[in-house]
């Protein structure tokens, strides 16, 4: 690990001011991702700005949303009664993430900004456009089992690793940020960037911009929602495929639906095509299969990750069945 300086500001403005003085700085919240990346030499910030002294850990219902502070720990959000009752897809996504120890440390803000688990990104002996722009993509033509089939480019095919972000994509949550140029709100569908030819740019956050909170809209039918994660191990494993869904049912008919996929795409992948197919259709396996086909219509496998296309479809069908039951 590189030597680095350490700061522990006590206000958001002090935090982004510290950042402005050192553009290569990094914030540290739970540290479960950034410290790991520093140890394996993928990140080497000269300054680490510890934001844990900021008062950003509250979880409150405000109007039609649950307002979650960026420093709320995954465990606290997963155990929150409001979240469990109104938005089970969020609680389940969190409970299925990482391990209890990690969930006790990891924060909501950090989770949304965790980097990909692409093995080439994490290995400095290999090329990677995301880690070292223009060095090439090690994964293309290599070990592909965990790489994405949706939203890929010829420059990067890395899967976005967060479970929570998939649930938030289904909800279209709002990310609240602050920085030198003031406060702003970013809708989740605008927050993540497709890799294109700049895979190192992952979000629409500006340099030093700090996430202060995420608001989770209290979707009227949020109680009928779920998150299904498929993985090799029963626990403590990243998704091979996952689906976050919510259904608004009237008898056997679907009025509205929310669908997002994880484990298979370069960003948390909301599928408006699947939602359109589900709207006003009968809640049946047949409908669900058509929706799944639509969700994966543009998917592209490259050999070692071909299996993700049928797997994601099945995962989505099953998630919809669970939500409809």
């Amino acid at each position, binding site marked *: 690990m590189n030597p680095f300086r350490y700061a522990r500001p006590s206000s958001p403005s002090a935090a982004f001011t510290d950042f402005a003085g050192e553009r290569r700085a990094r914030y540290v919240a739970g540290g479960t991702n950034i410290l790991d990346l520093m140890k394996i030499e993928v990140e080497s910030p000269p300054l680490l700005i510890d934001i844990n002294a900021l008062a950003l850990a509250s979880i409150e219902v405000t109007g039609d949303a649950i307002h979650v502070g960026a420093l709320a720990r995954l465990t606290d959000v997963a155990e929150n009664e409001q979240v469990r009752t109104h938005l089970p897809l969020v609680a389940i996504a969190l409970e299925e993430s990482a391990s209890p120890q990690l969930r006790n440390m990891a924060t909501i803000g950090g989770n949304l900004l965790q980097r990909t688990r692409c093995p080439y990104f994490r290995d400095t002996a290999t090329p990677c456009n995301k880690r070292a722009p223009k060095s090439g993509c090690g994964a293309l033509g290599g070990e592909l*089992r965990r790489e994405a089939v949706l939203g890929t480019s010829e420059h990067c095919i890395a899967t976005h690793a967060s479970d929570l972000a998939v649930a938030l994509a289904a909800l279209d949550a709002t990310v609240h940020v602050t920085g030198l140029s003031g406060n702003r709100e970013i809708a989740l569908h605008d927050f993540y960037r497709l890799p294109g030819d700049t895979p190192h740019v992952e979000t629409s956050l500006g340099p030093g911009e700090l996430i202060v909170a995420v608001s989770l809209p209290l979707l009227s039918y949020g109680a009928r929602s779920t998150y299904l994660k498929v993985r090799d191990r029963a626990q403590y494993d990243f998704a091979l495929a996952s689906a976050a869904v919510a259904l608004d049912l009237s008898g056997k008919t679907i009025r509205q639906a929310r669908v997002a996929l994880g484990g298979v795409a370069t960003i948390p992948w909301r599928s408006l095509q699947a939602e359109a197919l589900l709207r006003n259709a009968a809640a049946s396996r047949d409908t669900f299969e058509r929706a799944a086909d639509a969700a994966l219509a543009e998917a592209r496998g490259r050999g070692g990750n071909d299996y993700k296309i049928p797997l994601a479809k099945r995962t989505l069908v099953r998630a919809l069945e669970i939500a409809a039951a």
Partner: protein
Amino acid sequence: MSQPLVGAPHDRVEGPEKVTGEARYTADVVIEGLVHAAVVPSGIANGRIVAVDDSEARAAPGVIEVMTHHNAPRVSAAKPADSDSLLFLLQNDRIEFDRQPIAVVIAQSLEEATYAAQLLHVRYEADHPETNFDAAPRYVPKEIFGEPATHQRGDPEKAFATAPVRIEQTYRTPTEHHNPMETHGTVAQWNGEHLTLHDSSQWAFGVQRRIAKVFGIDAEQVRVIVPYVGGAFGSKGQMWSHVALAAMAAKLVGRPVKLIVTRPQMFGWVGHRPQTEQRVALGAQRDGRLVCVTHDVLSETSVSDEFVEPCAVFSRDLYAVENYGMSHALPRLNISKPTYQRGPGESTGSFAMESAMDELAYEIDIDPLELRLRNYSERQPDSGKPYSSKQLRQCYARAAERFDWGRRVPQPRSMNEGRLLLGLGMATASRNTHRTAAKVRIRANSDGTVVVACGTIEQGCGSPTVYAQLASEILEIPFERVRFEFGDTNLPEAPLAAGSQTSGSVGSVVVKAATWLRDKIADLGGTIPPNGIVLDVADEPGENDESYATQAFGAQFAQVVVDPDTGEVRVVRFVGAFDGGRILNAKTANSQFVGGIVWGISMALFEKTRYDARTARIMNANLSDYLVPTNADIPNPEVIAIEADDPHINPAHVKGIGEVGITGAAAAVANAVYHATGVRVRDLPITPDKLLV
């Protein structure tokens, strides 16, 4: 003593030390003046080092020396005739596998060494590495552990041609890396021409002899101390490069050096289970009686060294079948040298053989357990020798009963648990067991305490506990009065703690020594003289050991559920019954069997080292991407030890039990998955993508 001590589920004597963090492992060793070393592994798998720029590393804080092939002490890395591995000791610029050691940075602290190691800039000339298992040139090894690699009894080919029922399939197992909780590590200290090593090893004496050859000194000039070993599973059975690198570094800087292998480096130069491809051909009568078995094995080896995964030994010594053929051949790849991993050959070989037996059972529609019974061998089929003991029938019966095998509906995909598919599968477990010469020193003190000392090691199996149990029972004194000392070449010589041989080897000489001491004390009228009684005792296998076939057996039963949509497999129940001879300690023995089963489940469902096929770079060299099971993946394995006295096997009457638990376990899971889904997965691990049908 009224209650026999041997067999009792005695707590480990070192248990409290281990769970409170008091126990000392190699990484905990502190010596005056100690400095720290970090190994720099190669970033390519084939080629040479063109240039090393160490200026930045040398300028980093705390750095004492950077050892590369330019300045490393000249030593002998060659493989001596009696040893098993070539070493990579910075003697030239060649690189032949990913993560080969190419430099060592020595600094005042571990952090400084680790940091400076990143600052070393190495320029390579990379050649295309051989990574293609199927296409790489292969050769037939001369022998496998002293036995022929190719062997035949009867005429398997002819028998197969005319067999009424034929099964012929190819099975694959991937490269798997050992991941004991404690990684490898060494502390090296020179005193003139004398070297002291603290090392995490399965064999202090093997390290002593090998390191002496590296430096061209006498073995007597080397002392190897082995503190507690935090697991090894075969990976610490031989001396790997870092041990010598630590000693070379200590020589170069004139200070004691500590070198701890990191987790990613566990995927470097310290061995792994090789990838295999196994063709199994079974010919049978319609009633299931085998007429022939052929088992042809390919297992990967490294560019300039040889290891054979002896898969076919399992099928050779298993069922009563007249015609049998086996072969082993080795493709050479740009990988590090493979080595023993728990149940070498049997774990992988049993997956192939016992999957094939399952396929045969379905083919002729008889119960898989009944098929095994119809081919039960009363004598070891190949050698024709009687077994010293064999309780396999009882294993089958007791495990089947506990598991309620009778509920099985034969048709695949016909049982359910809710919406999940339920599957039941079984397999036979078997592992040859043997012993080698060992020595102990026994001392009775005038205060009535007894010390048994032996240079064997403690790697988590419970040796200090079970040998104290054995000795105290014979001496008829309380267990607490016997202490077992271990882990030092200054103590009497013990064999390699591997191959399930330690209890049989050291146990037998402990029995001999304790018996001698008991008689001696009786001769002295029951008193111990003020300066005590001491004797060095040796024991070695005699003629008796040659006249019997010595094998541990077992029966493995797995119950799985499979999600019909997502292909996720979970093992929900596992029952294993084992014939392990006399059990020395019910608790530590249970742990051995359970540990074997856990690893078998892991082989079946999770473990696989994933290489980049272009570069031979390992892309999952960490415990986040190389999957081993979590608690949630393992049901509580139910173990039944079928105990029977085995007076023929050795004076301790024990069979080795460290490895038999893993054999057959992966096959039982694979067979259960077939029963649940109707999908036969012939290449491990069985991941969801293989069940999407």
